[in-house]
């Protein structure tokens, strides 16, 4: 049961620089580890993260095997208008999760 934690300020003044924090539950298995029997543990990571602000993409990141489990991604943006942030995580084995958060801008 993948779950995400999102922290977006509920309110901001127009033009404010706001911090957005996201934490996604994921094992981030590198694909470089072996079992005691010698078999490779197949790679299972998140490969891409993106954030849209009222439909416009404002942040995107590619993720690689060296990133730790439960990736914590934080970034800044300028509050321009009230609306919605939509987050999307895509990964191996068909992993696809979304989350959203609203902001009101005065």
């Amino acid at each position, binding site marked *: 049961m993948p779950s995400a*934690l999102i922290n977006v300020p509920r309110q901001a003044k127009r033009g404010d620089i706001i911090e957005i924090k*996201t934490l996604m*539950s994921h094992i981030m298995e590198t694909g470089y580890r072996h079992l005691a029997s010698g078999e490779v543990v197949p790679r299972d990571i998140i490969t891409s993260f993106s954030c849209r602000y009222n439909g416009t993409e404002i942040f995107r990141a590619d993720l690689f095997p060296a990133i730790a489990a*439960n990736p*914590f991604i934080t970034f800044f943006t300028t509050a321009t208008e009230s609306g919605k942030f939509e987050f999307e995580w895509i990964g191996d084995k068909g992993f696809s999760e979304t989350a959203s958060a609203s902001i009101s801008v005065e």
Partner: protein
Amino acid sequence: MRLAGIITGIALLTAGAVLATEIPPAERRSGYSFMTSDTKAMQDDDTSNPGMLWVLDGEALWNRRLGAADKACADCHGDARTSMKRVAVSYPAFDKALGRPVDLEQRINLCRANHQQASPLPYESRDLLALTAFVAQQSRGLPIETGSDPQLAPFVARGRELFMQRQGQLNLGCTNCHDDNWDKHLAGSAITQGQPTGYPIYRLEWQSVGSLQRRLRNCMIGMRAEPYPYGAAEHVNMELYLMWRARGMKLETPAVRP
């Protein structure tokens, strides 16, 4: 014979307070205080603390009906925010039916078996850690009270014996590091006092949440001793002693540790 053992145990316990090797209450420090500012920041913010992901899962499990009885935890215990407050700070607690202390994980599994008529969750499974983290988080910030029950005294004494006893190929006792040398370093890492204030913890080394028993097994492997199996009475006695030793300190669950 058994009674004599108990009496010796209690005598040891009382004598313990004056032994020079034990940490005076005023000098006790949570593992938190040994961490770098980055790791502290990770624990302090609930959106950056990965342990909160387990707490969220635990909340979902709390409300899920299961087992032959088709009951959820919430059906008996209601809102965990009130019913589970102060529970984790008094565990491990004495179980009358079993006549011995049980830790929080065992209590959850007893509840599953007796009231939900469901199969027990395996130790260190995601679901058991999630439920334990969720229950324990309800007591975050409250002082630890474990061991106030007089029936627990002989078990605390047994846990203390294990803590003091030298074991393994390196011939070390827990006390040699965690009472005597907690202000020093071992290969660059701080030796902490071993205060169990934030279990289950998110350990960066594990990339996951884990129980106090898992942490104890880690230490025993480090001493090149044979670790006790999960659920062993020795583990529970040690958990009990450690929680008793940390009484009065604030619970931090879910804590982050390196």
